[in-house]
């Protein structure tokens, strides 16, 4: 359900970008998602197909680019890169990590015809 409302928000952004550029059809859309953005690719793709029906992006390919997650370790006081939200600190093995980056969800670009 959450993915559905995200994609609904995207539809407006994409259609107005296509209108501004006088494009009739959107062929491919690239989304950047942080490793902690909690977006489920399957749910996203499902929502994509449903929501884009009847829009300029109907049938367009959705491409997900996953960006690494970054967290601050309260044990060794360093900013570190981790793949999974609950991974230990790669430097000291500590578990007190506060995410700093990696929950972003952005539309990067799109290819149009």
């Amino acid at each position, binding site marked *: 359900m959450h993915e559905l409302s995200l994609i609904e928000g995207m539809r407006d*952004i994409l259609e107005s970008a296509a209108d501004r550029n006088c494009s009739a059809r959107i062929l491919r859309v690239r989304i950047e998602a942080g490793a902690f953005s909690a977006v489920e690719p399957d749910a996203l793709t499902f929502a994509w197909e449903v929501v884009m029906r009847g829009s300029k992006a109907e049938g367009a390919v959705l491409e997900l680019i996953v960006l690494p997650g970054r967290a601050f370790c309260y044990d060794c006081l360093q900013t570190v890169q981790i793949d999974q939200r*609950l991974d230990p600190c790669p430097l000291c093995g500590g*578990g007190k990590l*506060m995410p700093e980056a990696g929950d972003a969800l952005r*539309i990067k670009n799109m290819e*149009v015809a």
Partner: protein
Amino acid sequence: MCTMCGCGVVTIGQHDHSHDHGRSHGHSHDHGAHQTGDLHFGHGPAGIEVPGMSQSRLIEIETSIFHKNAFYAAANRTWLHQRGWLTVNLMSSPGSGKTTLLCATIDRVGGPVAVIEGDQQTSNDADRIRATGAPAIQINTGKGCHLDAHMVGRALGQLGSDPGTILFIENVGNLVCPAAFDLGEDARVVVLSVTEGEDKPLKYPDMFTSCRLALLNKIDLAPYCDVDLELYEANLRRVNPLIEIIRISARTGDGMKQWVAWLEAEARGKARRQAAE
């Protein structure tokens, strides 16, 4: 720097056109930009080039998917700021005791309180809040799994304008989606009841990471549930080292004093910050 591959600026100083052809053909094309031989792949509508694709067909967007929600959240924040309201976004799984806790809180808070209730269906929760005498607006989200900033904005206008009001937004019971939506609140508070299991913070880290305070609720039931309150707290701090925790029971009143003191300190802090502006 090239945004596609990280390479430097793409320029070459000299460039000529001598190459071997298996067959002869003419070389007529426009050399307007070829005077110096420089190549710049950052021109054109996209400001970028992708191999194998005509440049005019790539459109940069670089917009957050939460762009629209962020716009409405900023409007809510301005509205709330102008009235000096402290706004708390209260989140939890269904059945953690948010509404009971709110009713008990309203009885103990000295100043004006207003409530926005989010549920998929029914006005049961708003009815319970109104029975305490506080104004409450019910938002039914239908199929929606969370409140968004636009829904909250629609409700704000109906809640009066008493200065110094503490506004509670009781979000849809859900430990996943509400975490992603800024409503324009000052603070996020998560309610976790001891009947839910110690590993909930590990299973739903985003929710607990996004909150400043966790209310560990229904502690009067802890002796009957075979739970380890220390483990609850350790797991909360595992996903959010900065989180504050209050052990509370809306039914017996344990911890209520501490929770109301937390709210009043937040309200004073906000008033001080606004006065300093």
